[in-house]
C-alpha cells in the first residue's frame, strides 16, 4: 500500500502542471435526479457522479464534489470557487458567452410536458417550470402562462396540487417521476431544446477544458458513455 502511494506521488510529480493545480473541484446542484442528486447517505450520486468520476480517472486528475445552489452556480464558477460545472447544464448560446462548454455528454435530449390529463392545453394553460431554465424561456415563447418555481420538485408538486396545468422539464428528469406517479402522464410532443448537456469551464481555463473534452470524447468512442446513459437515463434516451 505504502509503495503504491509513493508510486502515485511520483507519477503526480511527473504529471506536473495538472497535479500542481491540486484537485479539480466539480460543482453540481445535487437536486436533479437522475443526473445528480444526494443519495440516502447524503453523497452526490447519479449519472453525472458516475460519469464525472470516470472522466477524472481518464483525465488523470483527482476530483472533489461540491454542491452549489443552481442560481449561483455560474457566478461561483467564474469566481473560481470550483473548477467545472457538471450539473445537467444544457449547452446554450447565452451560457456559452460566459463559460466554455466541453463537447456534450448527452445528445440533445428533448424536454417534455407532463400533466394530469391528456387534453391539457399546452399553449394556453398554466405551465410550471424551474426559474432560470431553458424550459422557462420556451414557455414564454409559446405564449402559455409561465409559473416559475425555484426548484424542480416544486414544479411537479404544483401540477399535482392543481396550481399548474402542466410541467415542462428535461424528459430524463420527468421519466422516473411519471413512472412513479399514478396521475402524471406525458402530454404533447417532445420539445428539442438546447444542444445537449456539457461540462462548463472558465473561459480562462482552456487546459482543463481540453482535458475533460478529450475524456468525454474517449468515452463516446469506446461506448462506455452509452452504457452509462442506458443505466441512468433509460433505454429510450437518445444515445451517441
Amino acid at each position, binding site marked *: 500500500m505504502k509503495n503504491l502511494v509513493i508510486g502515485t506521488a511520483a507519477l503526480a510529480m511527473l504529471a506536473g502542471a495538472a497535479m500542481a*493545480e491540486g*484537485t479539480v*473541484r466539480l460543482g453540481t446542484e445535487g*437536486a436533479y435526479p437522475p443526473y445528480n442528486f444526494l443519495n440516502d447517505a447524503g453523497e452526490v450520486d447519479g449519472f453525472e457522479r458516475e460519469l464525472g468520476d470516470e472522466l477524472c480517472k481518464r483525465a488523470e486528475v483527482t476530483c472533489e464534489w461540491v454542491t*452549489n445552489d443552481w442560481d449561483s452556480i455560474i457566478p*461561483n464558477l467564474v469566481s473560481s470557487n470550483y473548477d467545472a460545472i457538471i450539473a445537467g447544464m444544457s449547452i446554450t448560446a447565452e451560457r456559452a458567452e460566459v463559460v466554455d462548454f466541453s463537447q456534450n455528454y448527452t445528445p440533445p435530449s428533448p424536454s417534455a410536458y407532463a400533466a394530469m390529463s391528456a387534453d391539457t392545453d399546452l399553449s394556453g394553460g398554466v405551465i410550471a417550470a424551474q426559474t432560470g431554465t431553458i424550459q422557462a424561456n420556451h414557455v414564454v415563447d409559446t405564449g402559455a402562462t409561465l409559473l416559475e418555481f425555484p*426548484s424542480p420538485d416544486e414544479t411537479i408538486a404544483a401540477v399535482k396540487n392543481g396550481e399548474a396545468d402542466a410541467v415542462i422539464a428535461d424528459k430524463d428528469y420527468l421519466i422516473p417521476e411519471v413512472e412513479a406517479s399514478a396521475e402524471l402522464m406525458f402530454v404533447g410532443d417532445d420539445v428539442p431544446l438546447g444542444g445537449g448537456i456539457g461540462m462548463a469551464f472558465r473561459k480562462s481555463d482552456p487546459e482543463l477544458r481540453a482535458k475533460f473534452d478529450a475524456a468525454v470524447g474517449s468515452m463516446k468512442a469506446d461506448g462506455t458513455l452509452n452504457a452509462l446513459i442506458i443505466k441512468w437515463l433509460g433505454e429510450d434516451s437518445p444515445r451517441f
Partner: protein
Amino acid sequence: MMRSVIFAYCADPDTLAGIKWLSCYLTTGKHLSFYGSFGTVLLLLAITAPTALLFGFGGATAARSPIAPLRWFGRGYIAIVRGVPDIAFFLFFVIALDQAFEWMRHKALCPDWDQPIRQGNDFVVCAQAKLPLSTSAQWLHEAYGLTLAVLTFAIVFGAFAANVLFGAMRAVPHAQLETAAAYGMSPRQTFWRVMVPQMWVYALPGLSNLWMVLIKATPLLFLLGVEDIVYWARELGGSKTARFTDYPHGDWRMWYFFALLVFYLAFTKVSEVFLDRIMARLTKGQATSGGEAQRKAA
C-alpha cells in the same frame, strides 16, 4: 446504496414497516447530516454574535469619532447596510468578499503576475493566492465557506449592533462622564472605565432584539452556500421516487418544516428566558428605574 449506519435490521428497508421503517429512515446518512446542520447553525450563531458585536462596537466608536473621515465611515456603514434588505446583500456579498480577499493576497503574493485578474467574466488570481489553496482538503473549503458566511452575517448585523450601541453610548448620563473628567480621567480612561461598563444596560434591550432577529435570519444561510437546516429540510422533504432512494415517499416538506418551526419557537423561548435573566443581573446597582425597583424589592 448506503444503509443506515445505526441499526442492523435496516439492511433491506423494503421489507420494513411502521416504527422500524421510520427508525431506519430517520437514521440515514442524509438525516444525520440534517441533524448535524442544527449544530452548524448553533455554532454559526455562537461565533457570529460576538463578531457582530465587535463590528458594532467598532462601528459605533467610529461614528462617534472626533476624526471626520472615520465618523463618516462609521455613519455611512450604519446607514447603508441597514437601508438594504439583507437578502439583496447576501446574494452578492459573499462572492465579493471572497474576491476581495483573493485580490489582496494576489497583490501581495504574486507581484510579477502579468495576466489581468478580470478576464471577461472570469476572476483569476495566481494559484498561491487562492483561498483556500486548491490543494487543501475539503473540510478547509467548508470551513472557509463558513468563515465567509460568518463574516457576511457579522457585517450586516454589526451595522445594527453599531446603531444600538451608538444609542446606548449617548444614553449614559452625561453627569457620569463629566464627573469622570472632573476626577482627572483622560478621554480614553473615561471611555473605557466609565462609559463602556455603563452602556450595556441601555444597549441590552436593543441587542436582545437583534439576537432574536439573528436567530430568525439563519434560514438565509443557504444563500451563503452553507448547507443549513433549511437546505436539508427541503432536500429531505421533497418527494422521492423509488429509483433513487431506499425510502421513497411523497412530498413531506410540511413535516420537516414543522420540525424547523418547533425548533425556532423553542429557541426563541429559551433565549427570552435567558435574556431576561441577564437583564436582571445587569440592572443590579444601576442608576435606572429598573435598578431602583430591584433595590426596593430586595
